[in-house]
């Protein structure tokens, strides 16, 4: 019986390792897949304006069919990134910035922005940024900046599309 104590302890340690390793793999791995998918359609540090989610268009799990998404896979390894936002009038929209481990490091909706255009600079802690700019510091080089824009009817995308395309993402 005692000869199984050692293997049992190894099994318990391996189970803990398997548990936490799998959770980390799911978190970072799935986020990495999402970042690669976004970047594949327009490159990094570029705002890609997606179509309304439907059964045929679901770039990520659990998309909302009431929102159109604009997304930017950012990469700060070569320097900060500038994000410019123009909220559409009279409706919900928001900018959220996710880091590589899926945490939201910044979120601002249209009401919080007073319905007015604004811009932020995404940067690592040690990166220099222009004076006076609103800066969001992140702990990882890569992540996703996501704009959600509410459509009350799918036909609204016509008049709103030129507005959302004023929002952008670019390397400084």
């Amino acid at each position, binding site marked *: 019986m005692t000869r199984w104590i050692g*293997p049992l302890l190894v099994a318990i340690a391996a189970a803990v*390792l*398997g548990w936490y390793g799998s959770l980390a793999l799911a978190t970072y791995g799935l986020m990495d897949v999402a970042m690669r998918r976004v970047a594949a359609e327009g490159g990094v540090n570029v705002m890609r304006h997606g179509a309304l989610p439907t059964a045929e268009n679901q770039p990520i799990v659990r998309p909302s069919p009431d929102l159109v998404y604009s997304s930017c896979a950012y990469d700060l390894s070569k320097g900060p990134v500038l994000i410019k936002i123009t909220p559409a009038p009279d409706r*919900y929209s928001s900018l959220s910035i996710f880091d590589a481990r*899926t945490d939201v490091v910044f979120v601002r909706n249209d009401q919080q922005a007073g319905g007015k255009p604004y811009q932020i600079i995404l940067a690592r802690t040690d990166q220099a940024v222009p004076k006076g700019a609103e800066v969001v510091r992140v702990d990882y080089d890569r992540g996703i900046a996501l704009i959600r824009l509410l459509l009350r009817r799918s036909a609204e995308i016509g008049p709103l599309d030129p507005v959302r395309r004023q929002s952008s993402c670019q390397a400084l």
Partner: protein
Amino acid sequence: MAGKRRYIAGGCIGLVLGAGLAWYATGRAFKDGAVRNGPWSTSLNYGVASADALTRAAVARRGLLALPKTETVYWAATRDSAGALLDGSCTYRLSGKAVDSRWWSITLYDSQGYLQANSARLWSFSGATLTAEEAQKGWQVTIAPSRPRTGHWLPSLAGQPFELTLRMYNPGAQFMTSPGTADLPRLTKESCA
């Protein structure tokens, strides 16, 4: 030699067990959160730095890019009010009043979290759909494979299980004081084919 094999076997079994449990738990966590209200369940810990490893992985797997509760509360329903799994062959009545948030919607997904193809191209029902009378007196939606004679409809697929997600964007202050007892939509099974 036999002793070494026991250690290797123990390590392999432990790894598989730990990974398997993680896979199972992340599949459950997003639709079986800590806060319950009728058929609805949520965690108020999505997207924040203080989230534990399980919540973070569950969100990555079942609701990637979810917003924190200050911006949006996501409720999931996989069972009706009687506790039975949601079945696309059955007819359900979803009813309620205006939800305490700036904007809300209820979306029907398959059991993996994706929109199901349907000829009506309808996947959600939202507060924007309500008439003034419905907003004041209450609303009702039929979830069924076939369009009802009257009223709002959210199509399901016969023979397919489904899930519902209730999104509350900019939830009200009163709701946030007690999400577990807030007035949320009710889900009742009416019949099954």
